[in-house]
């Protein structure tokens, strides 16, 4: 076990790296050099941070269209993500994937999908693979509340429960799918209840409380690694920006202002700072130096990305299959 102060520092640093990365995307996006649809996770940073801190490099995560935070938390370099957002040959997917398909198998990220619910069974497959190879690995499926309406979600839970697979289902319930609110889309039973229907230990929790996520994910992954099967965590949260792009959608009436403001007041980073003054781990000095280090890292990532080479159009057919 790591000392508590180290854990707090790591959680905070991960959230900050995600936060500042996304903010930089917002700042630079209007230049129209990142020609890829960006689904930002500002406001949702606690979930990837609280989950991925428990994962080793060999554990596998699968992500969605809203993938930046998951990949950063799992250990992907900011540079390779930034380069991918600029469509560069040097990006994590060599400019073939873009924002919605970030992948880095070396870091245990086989990939991300833009088809809602599509990567949930892939994570279950990675867990099946771990069980067959008996290698002690766990896998995590990150997905939104909308994905819990897809058949792939239910098919995945059924199979994972049946075979007691080492997989953690993490639902980031930001209460909206594009501009469609949860209550317009599913009965008010809660998403965790769906897991219970398959006999999967399932919990709803405050997804903006990184410590709550940290504890729940730690327990769940411990169970998974002990051969006790999957867990479903429904993490309640809120996205600060619109569904896609660098602006907020509250102005144009897509989501209610009062809810938006209420959730803005529950910033995951602020909450961690405020709740732990006595621990001393997040001292003013630490905060300042971390801020600086992260800022420099992001400067460097985006500067490199802007000046990296584009793919060669004559290579458009490369990577369709392993033959070419």
């Amino acid at each position, binding site marked *: 076990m790591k000392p508590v102060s180290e854990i707090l520092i790591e959680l905070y640093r991960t959230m900050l790296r995600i936060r500042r990365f996304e903010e930089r995307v917002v700042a630079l996006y209007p230049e129209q050099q990142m020609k890829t649809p960006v689904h930002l996770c500002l406001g949702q940073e606690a979930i990837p941070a609280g989950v991925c801190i428990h994962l080793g490099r060999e554990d596998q995560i699968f992500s969605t269209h809203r993938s930046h935070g998951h990949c950063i938390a799992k250990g992907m370099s900011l540079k390779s993500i930034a380069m991918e957002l600029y469509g560069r040959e040097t990006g994590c997917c060599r400019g073939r994937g873009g924002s919605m398909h970030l992948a880095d198998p070396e870091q245990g990220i*086989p990939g991300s999908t833009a088809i809602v619910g599509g990567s949930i*069974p892939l994570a279950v497959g990675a867990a099946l693979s771990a069980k067959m190879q008996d290698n002690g690995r766990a896998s995590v499926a990150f997905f939104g509340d909308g994905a819990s309406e897809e*058949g792939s979600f239910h098919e995945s839970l*059924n199979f994972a429960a049946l075979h007691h697979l080492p997989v953690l289902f993490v639902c980031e319930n930001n209460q909206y799918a594009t501009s469609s609110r949860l209550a317009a889309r599913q009965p008010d039973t809660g998403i965790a209840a769906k897991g219970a229907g398959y006999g999967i230990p399932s919990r709803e929790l405050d997804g903006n409380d990184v410590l709550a996520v940290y504890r729940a994910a730690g327990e769940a992954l411990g169970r998974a690694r002990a051969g006790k099967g999957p867990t479903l965590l429904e993490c309640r949260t809120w996205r600060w920006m619109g569904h896609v792009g660098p602006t907020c959608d509250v102005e144009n009436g897509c989501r209610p202002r009062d809810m938006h403001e209420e959730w803005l007041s529950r910033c995951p980073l602020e909450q961690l700072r405020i709740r732990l003054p006595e621990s001393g781990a997040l001292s003013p000095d630490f905060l300042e130096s971390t801020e600086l280090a992260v800022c420099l890292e992001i400067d460097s990532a985006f500067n490199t990305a802007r000046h990296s080479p584009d793919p060669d159009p004559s290579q458009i057919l490369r990577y369709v*299959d392993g033959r070419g």
Partner: protein
Amino acid sequence: MPWTGIQADGRRDCEVYGADGEAGRQLTYRDAIREALDQALGMDPRVFLIGEGIDDPGGVFGSTLGLAEKYGSLRVMDMPLAENGLTGVAAGAAMTGMRPVLIHMRVDFLPMAMDQIVNHVAKWRYMTGGKVSVPLTIRAITGRGWGSAAQHSQSLHALFAHIPGLTVVMPASPRDAKGLLMGCIASGEPSLVIEHRWLYDLKEVVPEEPFLVPPGVGLIRREGTDVTLVGVSHAVYDLLLAAEQLATEGISAEVLDLRSVRPLDEALIISSVRKTGRMVVMDTGWKRCGISAEVAAVVSESAHDALRAPFRRICIAECPAPASAVLEDAYYPGCADVVACVKGLL
């Protein structure tokens, strides 16, 4: 599913495929598939089979019989009726070090898994810039006859052959059933093996040792000089019967088995048509936007000058498969249609 057994077994008038009197061990198409799976499981610990009822007493028309007993229920795994989800599960396992073979009794169940096959499996390597491959093989069987009707007799290969990133093969003979299946598993590419239920009892000399037929390589099954007859899967059988009959009337037909509809062996098609100057394409699927159109386009683009007559296409009727036996007869073209068509070209 005994009904297709009755029909398939009742139909065989020519049981042995390949050269007359060829020496060696003969195997049925069904047993050739089983042997391929058995050997793949035996040689490679990454290989596992998963499918609805693959461990039951029927054993997917006999093609998986005894394998669950031999390799256990983790490597020969029954699965829930969740075709799309389980295609994703198999794909996820493939991305992380395994070599799954997903088995469907019917091609008709593949549309349930369209999202995973088309959006995920086919594209994953490309989307990740070549970093993550999906060595997943999917077997599915085309049924026919005995009133199997619209949702139990489809031949949907053209649908999948449209998608870059997928390999689609259609073995027409026992030897290819083994070689192509092993070839797909070994290729590391996402592959669809579409088998035909009416070929299951065919016999051919099949090598006992493991061997690979690489996807994308067609085969001249019979040499000829007057016309090229191109087909896949069960159509090849009809074409061979037709060629035999045409020979008795002094017409020399070359029979080209595509074996693989993606990749397509364009060079073989072109060279054969350059030799014969005529072409008839027969497909187990529909004509509109089908493989026969693709083959015709290849010839138009690259060997148009060699054609001495317009190419012709023989496909199933442009409607869902009907149930009535009379309508079935009208739905499926056969050897006689090929013979008549060729005569019309000469």
